[in-house]
């Protein structure tokens, strides 16, 4: 093989080799997912008995006496945002019409799980979520 042919063939491979070498870092870069770090502090005095929606954080807080439960406001079926129907005391999904009781238990619809709960801790008179 002539030197000219060898060089031109070698150079023709360079873009492909460079592309292949960059594929892994590019893939790692694009598929990097940052974990959610939502942290929220709510004074207990702001929590009324029953269900308190926290729209900005996409949560519902249920308070029954001293017992507090924090629910993720997304439907466990496909993740649509739930509404709390105060009249029927159920969480309603406007997408595929699943229904959940006020304690988060699944009642009907395509969802198969109860509502997800979010861990929290009490610091003095403040509820800290996340």
């Amino acid at each position, binding site marked *: 093989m002539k030197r000219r042919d060898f060089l031109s063939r070698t150079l023709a491979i360079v873009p492909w080799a460079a592309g292949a070498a960059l594929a892994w870092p590019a893939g790692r870069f694009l598929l990097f997912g*940052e974990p959610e770090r939502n942290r929220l502090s709510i004074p207990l005095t702001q929590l009324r008995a029953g269900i308190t929606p926290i*729209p900005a954080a996409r949560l519902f807080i249920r308070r029954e006496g001293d017992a507090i439960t924090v629910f993720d406001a997304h439907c466990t079926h496909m*993740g649509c945002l739930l*509404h709390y129907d105060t009249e029927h005391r159920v969480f309603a999904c*406007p997408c595929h019409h699943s229904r959940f009781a006020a304690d988060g238990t699944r009642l009907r619809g*395509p969802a198969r799980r109860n509502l997800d709960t979010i861990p929290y801790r009490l610091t003095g008179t403040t509820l800290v979520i996340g």
Partner: protein
Amino acid sequence: MRTFRHITAQLALGLFAVSLLSGLLPVFVYHPSDPYASVQKLTFLVPWGSFFRQLHYFSSELFLLVLLLHIVLEISRRYPVPSRTSWLYSVLATLAVIGLMFTGFVLKGDQSADAAAQVALHLMEETPLLDRLVPLIKETEVFTWKFFVWHGFYLPFLLILGIWKHIGRITPRRVYWAMGLGLSALSLLLLPLPADIAPHETIDHLKGPWFFQGAENLLQLSLAPWLVNVVMFLPFALLFLYPFVRRTRWIGIALLLWLIGYTAVSLAV
């Protein structure tokens, strides 16, 4: 004599040109960090904002419809299959159009947009392999940011590349520019823009984009999310296979059956 294939291709190009140009202006008003408010500002405050939003919306909807018609004609009338490269790029372009329509729907930032995005993310998260791709559209800080990037940059690039490689040009002939603009303007005058649903408004039922209505109905019937994805991706898999098989007739029949079935499911519930 011009064939229907040629006419629908050129008309689709005309509508794409209108969609692309009318989408260039709203970018100056749109903010991914506050999508709903910026879309309301565009619609009700900025002079001619509503006009450009509607022109963008209707030209895009018509573009998708004419593109579907073009594909149906291509399959059903059994024109000679173009080169494999040309065909594969056309499938890539079709995928880009669906992606553009979906990301555009999400960018309006109202409740239906948010729900559509959540459903799409869940569909991906609950499907093996696709779950790895979730970070491509999920952003924790500014939810619509990655949808915006896809809609405004990557997908238009893929679409233009696909069209260019498919037919060797991206601008329509003059008469089809006029037809694209005329049809979009006519739709704008005769049809209402779907109402936006404010983020905290209580509503009984939310609808996603019309072309995903079939998937929504399958989800409501408790079909497993991965199976819904199989149903949604099946026509694209068949389209990719089309130029590689000798008896394209069977793939054509399968695609038409899928289209009829999907339309029936979409209208059923």
